[in-house]
Every structure is written in C-alpha cells, then in structure tokens.
C-alpha cells in the first residue's frame, strides 16, 4: 500500500476517485482502510447499524479487476460510501432504525442503482432516528449514534449516521433523507456539508417514505467538489417517481469554477436570526465577512412572514406519517420506542381539511417567498441550527410534552425549506463554545443547487473548516 490507511481515509472523495482511476491505489486498499477505521470508531460513535465488510471487499476486487481491463464504471469507480438504513436494496432488510421495520425489500432504490452505475461501493447501513422521526438522532431501539467530536453530544438526526460517518472519515460520502432538516442538522453538528436539494431533483423511489410531500433525499460530503460529484451521479428525472422534475440537471462540478464577485448574499432581517445563541451567531456572522472579502455583496433581506412555515410542514409530515404508519402501529405498536410511537401517531389529531389546506396553500406561499426574497438577493444566508449541539442527556426527553418544544427549536431554520421545497445547504463555519461544529445554511431558488455549491466552494477555498477532523482519544 503506497499511502497509509489514515492518509487514504483523509482524502476527499474526488481525490480517492482520481487515485483509483490512475492506479495509484486499489479500491481494495481504500475499502480496507475504511473498514479498519470503522472498527476503531464504531464503539465510540455507533454510526453503523451494519457493516458489509466482505461484500464491500468483493465489490472492490471486482472494481479493481474491471479497471485492470480498462473498464471504469464512472466517476465514483471503486470509492466506498455508506447510506442511511432506509434506501432499499432488493433482498436486504432496511431496518429504518427500528425494531418494527418491514421484511426484506423486493426492489432497489433508484439512487443506489445510480451510485452502483457510477462505480461506488456500499460499505454499510447507517444509524438513523427510528423511522426518521426526530431531529436529535436519539434511537432507543438500535442505540444512539453519537457525535464524533464528543460522544456525549447528539449527532442530530434523523440521518445521524451520515454526518458522523463522513466526519469521522469512515466513508467518503453518504445518502440521507431530509424531511425537516434531517441531513442539514447532522451535517451542521459534525462539521461536514449537508445538502437538501429542491423537491423533485432526486428520486425518492425505493426510499422509506415518511412524508411524500416533504421528503427529500439528501447528500453528505466533506468538500463541495465531492458533493457535486455525488449529485452528478444521482440527480435527474426518474420515471418511477412522479415527483421528479423533467429538467436536465446541470454539470455540478463545472459550476464550482465561477467566483462570487458581485453575488448578493442575503441576510434575513427577521425570524431566522431570532432565537440564535451568541456563539452560533458569531460563527455565522464571521462567515459573512469571508464572503465580503471575496467580493460578494452582503445585503439585508426583508422577509415575508415565516412564523408558521414550520408548523405547516409538520401538518404535512405528521398527517402523512400517521397514514403510512397506521397499519404497522395497529399491529406492532410495542415494537416502536415510546417517543417515536407518539410522533408517528400525531396525525391522528390533525383534521383532514387542515391537511388539505396545508397542501393547497403551498404553491402561493413558495411563490411569495421566492419572489420576495430572491428579488433582494441571489442566495439566502442563515444559521442551520441556532443552538450549539446539545448533549444526548439534555435532549433525552422521551415522549414528554417538552419534546415538541425541543424539536421546534432544532428545526426552526430548516423545516421551512422542506415545506417550501427549496434547496438548502449546510456549510461548516466554525465551532461553538462547547467545542462542537456549527454551520451556516445557504438557501436558493428552486433548482439552484449549482449556485449554492458555487458559493460554498468559494467559502471553502478561503477557509479550512472543512479540513478539521475529529480524533480518537489516545489509547
């Protein structure tokens, strides 16, 4: 092995893909390095629910053999990834983080198929909040995923394993799902990038449904180029998912080359900067100074009323989640953890006409938001999580009434974009006073992922937050 295992796992996805393609390292070496690192980190953070060690090594050998014959599968040839345990693969049980999950899938998710075609290797199934119901990452059924920067703290959720795994350099990227912040929140507290794309950019076929009106597959990566490469591999229309847009996605890596001079970075003047802790605000504010130094214009943005967007999102999510879980809850309620059972049943109290109104109001509200906000700026800049990453103990509230307040605080800056269907990207920008990572969030017009990546890339070139990594305590 020409490079050491720790050096290999520290590479970016783009670097790893280039190294495999050039024959500087084999896929087996990369997969082995990741598996060895997983073995060391897993007892500390429990980010994997299953590790596909032998299968991943066999896939790596096939990738190496194909390359030896001059056959490269694509941009991700031989690169190991790991995904939230809710993307179906035919013949495999996706636990969905629960003891009440259905049996083995009979179909494979479109996104996994597309990653397969691009040559990626699947390392394992990642921890998550049970049935993706919860932003803290608690999982009483399978064990909590922990934050690699400090295991006493939450990894956030619901895609808890995605942030922790990518941050700890156990895999080079990850698929998650984001229905109220479930990719962006874990990304924020673990110091990696987390993208919730526009509703309809990525196929949800073969992904565990929670709320078909708000669910969005999402992506974790350590650099903007990595994120762009992953998005290139998976974006686009899917005839098996009627929600997907017919538009042809742009070349995302190509979009990174443009700078941000003259671009208007909008700072909301209400709602999103309220209830933000001093240390988060300080880091977010400092990132604006970086953009100014890069020639962007930082402009104040007068916001439309955003007060009720999170609740509107909840109406959709809880109504649909309760309908989806109804039969399972009747048959197997005891297999759900208590707090998740309550969340899954919340739609029982929401009248059908209210749900229908929440859907019917959405076109007007997104129209109003986009026309108002993006007339004043090109991208909106705001916190992702307005508070420092809490400890697991602080947020271990079970099914108590205070649970709703804790959740509301955590998703305040993220859930509105699920209701509106707009793209949003969490970008690491420093650390809070408790030593945990924090981030700012960029939101844009529909299908503005290339612009969000371009802006984040410019920031990444001027800072080194994306290079910081958690370390295991010395033995």
């Amino acid at each position, binding site marked *: 092995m020409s490079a050491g295992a720790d050096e290999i796992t520290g590479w970016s996805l783009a670097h790893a893909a280039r190294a495999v393609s050039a024959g500087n390292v084999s896929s087996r070496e990369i997969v082995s390095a990741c598996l060895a690192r997983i073995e060391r980190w897993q007892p500390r953070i429990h980010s994997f629910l299953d590790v596909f060690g032998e299968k991943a090594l066999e896939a790596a050998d096939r990738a190496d053999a194909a390359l030896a014959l001059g056959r490269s599968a694509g941009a991700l040839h031989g690169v190991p990834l790991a995904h939230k345990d809710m993307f179906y693969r035919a013949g495999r049980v996706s636990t969905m983080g629960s003891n009440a999950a259905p049996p083995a899938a009979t179909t494979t998710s479109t996104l996994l198929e597309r990653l397969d075609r691009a040559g990626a290797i699947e390392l394992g199934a990642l921890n998550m909040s049970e049935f993706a119901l919860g932003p803290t990452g608690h999982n009483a059924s399978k064990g909590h995923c922990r934050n690699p920067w400090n295991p006493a703290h939450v990894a956030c959720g619901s895609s808890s394993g995605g942030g922790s795994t990518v941050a700890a350099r156990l895999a080079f990227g990850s698929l998650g799902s984001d229905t109220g912040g479930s990719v962006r929140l874990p990304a924020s507290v673990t110091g990696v990038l987390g993208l919730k794309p526009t509703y309809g950019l990525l196929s949800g076929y073969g992904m565990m449904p929670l709320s078909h009106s708000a669910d969005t597959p999402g992506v974790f990566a350590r650099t903007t180029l990595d994120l762009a490469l992953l998005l290139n591999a998976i974006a686009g229309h899917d005839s098996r998912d009627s929600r997907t847009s017919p538009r042809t996605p742009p070349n995302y890596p190509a979009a990174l080359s443009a700078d941000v001079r003259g671009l208007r970075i909008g700072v909301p003047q209400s709602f999103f900067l309220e209830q933000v802790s001093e240390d988060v605000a300080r880091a977010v504010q400092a990132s604006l100074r970086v953009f100014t130094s890069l020639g962007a214009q930082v402009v104040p943005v007068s916001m439309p009323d955003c007060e009720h967007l999170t609740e509107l999102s909840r109406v959709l999510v809880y109504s649909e989640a309760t309908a989806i879980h109804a039969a399972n809850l009747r048959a197997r309620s005891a297999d759900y953890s208590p707090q998740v059972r309550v969340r899954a*049943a919340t739609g029982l109290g929401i009248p059908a006409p*209210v749900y229908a109104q929440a859907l019917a*109001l959405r076109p007007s509200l997104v129209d109003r938001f986009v026309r108002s906000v993006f007339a004043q700026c090109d991208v909106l800049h705001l916190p992702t999580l307005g508070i420092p990453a809490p400890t697991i103990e602080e947020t271990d509230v079970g099914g108590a009434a205070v649970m*709703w307040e804790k959740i509301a605080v955590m998703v305040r800056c993220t859930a509105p974009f699920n209701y509106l269907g707009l793209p949003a990207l969490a970008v690491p920008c420093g650390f809070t006073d408790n030593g945990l990572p924090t981030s700012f969030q960029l939101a844009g017009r529909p299908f503005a992922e290339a612009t969000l990546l371009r802006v984040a890339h410019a920031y990444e070139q001027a800072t080194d937050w994306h290079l910081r990594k958690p370390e295991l305590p010395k033995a």
Partner: protein
Amino acid sequence: MAETIDAQAVLILAHTQGQTWVDVETAKRIAAAATTAVQAVAAVASGVAAAPLEDSALEFAATLEALAEPQL
C-alpha cells in the same frame, strides 16, 4: 385562539381507528401538538390564496419549475 383540541376526542378517534394502544397521556400529547399545527394553518389560510385542492401537488411542482433559477 385559546381553544385546544380535546384529548378525549383524540382518544376516541384513535381507538375508533384501531389504535387501541393510545392512552390518555399519549392523547394529550397528540392533542397539544395537533392544536399548534391546526392554529398555524388557520393563521395562514386567512391571508393566502389556496390552490384548487385537486391541483395542489401538480401546482406546487409547476410553481417550483416556474420559479427555478435559470440554467447556467
């Protein structure tokens, strides 16, 4: 709006639908969360035009397409 959804009504609704595991405490929590959600919809609905119900999903997708950022 000071009224809240009645937990007893939630309990009956739940049991009628076969969710017999829902107890009084659970019904209270569901009622509290649902009340906040219902109030939010009422607050917004008075000032915003709603799409025709049968078109809301299609219209949402069409709105996103119409508002999309121009391709680079």
